[in-house]
């Protein structure tokens, strides 16, 4: 056997460790970059932005009532988002388990859930700062607001659909009348 220099194993280990370290940093950096590049599940939170702007406005100071209303609106939006998350979670979990959707959606969805949790906590904190113990009541009212909005939306839809159906039936009737004319 030829002589093996002492440096051979050392070089080997250095090479191995540096390669692994390189891989790990590159991998982690890419992962973080990918996570940052993922679009948030929900768009911008307008109600929250309004509330924060109002709260930070000092000249002139925003009346308490207005601030409360803004917070209530913010809570309502939170409730809406949480409901939408809860509704689609079982479907997404099933699809993800089956491999019918990719990991990205799942990651985004879980992130959205976490963000909403934090947002709700923050919202409750704000409410309790305005009036201790109000948070509980506020979310209940917010849920009612959401329901009410939904009903209003449906009602609006009815008149719209009514108009459409009316037009359709008119068209049908005139067509039928024309056909009858022809047959005569």
């Amino acid at each position, binding site marked *: 056997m030829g002589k093996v220099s002492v440096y051979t194993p050392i070089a080997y280990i250095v090479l191995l460790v540096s*390669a692994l370290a390189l891989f790990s940093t590159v991998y982690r950096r890419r992962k973080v970059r990918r996570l940052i590049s993922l679009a948030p*599940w929900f768009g911008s939170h307008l109600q929250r932005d309004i509330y924060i702007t109002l709260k930070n406005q000092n000249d002139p100071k925003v009346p308490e009532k207005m601030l409360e209303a803004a917070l209530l609106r913010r809570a309502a939006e939170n409730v809406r988002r949480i409901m*939408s998350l809860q509704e689609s979670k079982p479907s*997404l979990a099933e699809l993800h388990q089956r491999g*019918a*959707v*990719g*990991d*990205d*959606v799942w990651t985004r969805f879980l992130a959205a859930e976490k963000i909403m949790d934090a947002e709700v906590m923050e919202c409750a904190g704000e409410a309790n700062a305005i009036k201790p113990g109000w948070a509980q009541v506020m979310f209940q009212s917010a849920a009612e607001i959401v329901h009410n909005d939904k009903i209003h939306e449906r009602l609006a839809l009815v008149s719209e659909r009514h108009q459409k159906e009316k037009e359709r039936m008119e068209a049908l009737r005139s067509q039928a009348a024309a056909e009858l004319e022809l047959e005569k």
Partner: protein
Amino acid sequence: MSDSRYSYDENAEAWPYFAMTLLSLVLVPTTYKAVSKLSRSSDKGPPELESQYKPPNYEIIKRFRKKSRKSSLFTTTNVLLLAGWIIFFGVAFFVYTQEAPDDVQRFDPYEILGVTYTASEKEIKSKYRKLSLKFHPDKIGNNLGNSTREELESQFVEMTKAYKSLTDEVTRKNYLDYGHPDGPQPMKHGIALPKWLVDEKGTPMVILAYACLVGIALPFVVWQWWSGTKKYTKNGLHTVTAANIFEKFAKTDFENITNDVLLDLLSDAEEFKILYPGITNEEVHAHLNTYLSREKEQDAADEIKKLGIVSRSMTILEGMLDIASSFKNVDLIRTILLLTQSFAQALPPNSHELLQIPFLDEKKLACLKVKTIKELVAMGDDEQRKVLGIESAEDLKALKSFESQIPSVEILKAFFKVPGESTVTPGSLAHLVIKFRVAFPGTKLSPPELKDLEEEDSPETLKKPLSTNNKAPALNPVYAPFLPIYLQPKWNVLLINPRENKIVEPPTSITHVYTNGDISTFKVQLSAPLPDQLGKFRLLIELRSNCFIGVDALSSVYLEISPPQTTEEEIDDDISDPDEDSIAGAMAVMRGGKTKRRADEDEDEDNEDENESSSDEEDSDTDINTDTEDEGDS
């Protein structure tokens, strides 16, 4: 110990075999896979129908089909396979041309002495004596040449050795243990590697190759495979597409998901952007609209692009259906299924079923008396000719050939069944049995026989109830004139709970069907056990075709949950055993349910109420059974 020695394959005796074995280990399974894939794709298509009806852009569609078939033949895998086989045969040729090396004669004392393996010692001795008389160097005359003399002498030495190994104790032991009468022989181990590979000069090269393989090639392949599996979902949808579809469905009210929304979603698919880099959503949407209105693109290249988009759309729609089914909403699923039908026939969504028929357009449809395909087919040749304005006999033939593949499906009976039970019992795992019949124009249909509509348990169905689903022959691919790919026809089975407007089970598909007028059976396994609550529930079944408009079948099915049939029914009434409280209460409910024939919703709600009240009261009062019965009657 024996003196063993390793030697490398200097004369290239063994390593070609080794290389061939390795190669064939990879090549044979891969080739098998490739060939089976190729044969599957090549027999896809009914050429006899294709020649009949030709849409205006037939030539381009044909070109597109040819191209896609060619591209499936010259894939990278196939090219690599070919290269692998060439190397394999090269090595085989090399082996063939090599001279076989002289094998060292194995020492076999029996053969040398010319005795059978079962010969006794006596026989061996006499044989040896006979041979030594003949071959002993002293006995051989001098009349033989020198060379032969030496040969004979060595032969005689061998004989003596052989004789000794069979008679002498020590030599015999040596022969048995080491295969040679003189004891252990130097052993030679060959390693099937060519000598140049292990030479001093080859070492750096080998190390380099090894490093490339383990350090670069292997991680690269694994990484490619992994990112490839992550890029596409199990349905073959791009993950971006799947994510977009899911997000849209999750965030939109199902009522607002119309065909336009679905078409927008489809145009947004990532697949098209990969297929045709730089294409915009609007362009894809425009192509889809052109296709659905059966129009032609101005440019031939655009037309090919359109066909590519359309053939990909069918897969995406299928994936869309899969994602939609997880939301369980019936309207959404129905919209997607109907859109799939319009895609197959190249018609705008919600088109009239008669518009599928060649030579028939909106104008002719308005004047037409008949409103279904069945009625049109029943009109007879001459009448059809007149109505559709067909002049040549060729066109009529084309029309008939198209009509001949439009099936009609009829659900004869549908019921729930629990394997091994005569009734559907609470909490059991039931399956839905659909007895249906598929007919094509011209099939003679006789009234179904009652015994064909029953489902008898057999040992096989008790074990695997769904094993009968693929008993009938598979359906042939369908020729949809405008669609550039051949469609494997199927019916998607939806089991719907009409009260919640939700599907009970994800859609399953019927692909095996008797087409000669016999009754086919399809079963859908319910994934959840039935509720414990007794009663009769109405559910809906829909069989939706994936390739023709207006050949769906709808039917309602009743799920009647009744108690298991026992002989102890009467005892239950009299004895108020606390353990059987719940059963007694349930029995009362069943009777109450039977006496009423009202709308299902009311019935079910009433049942629930009664159930609660009866079980509450029964703890204290034993006469409660009769009480609830009275309530039910009133």
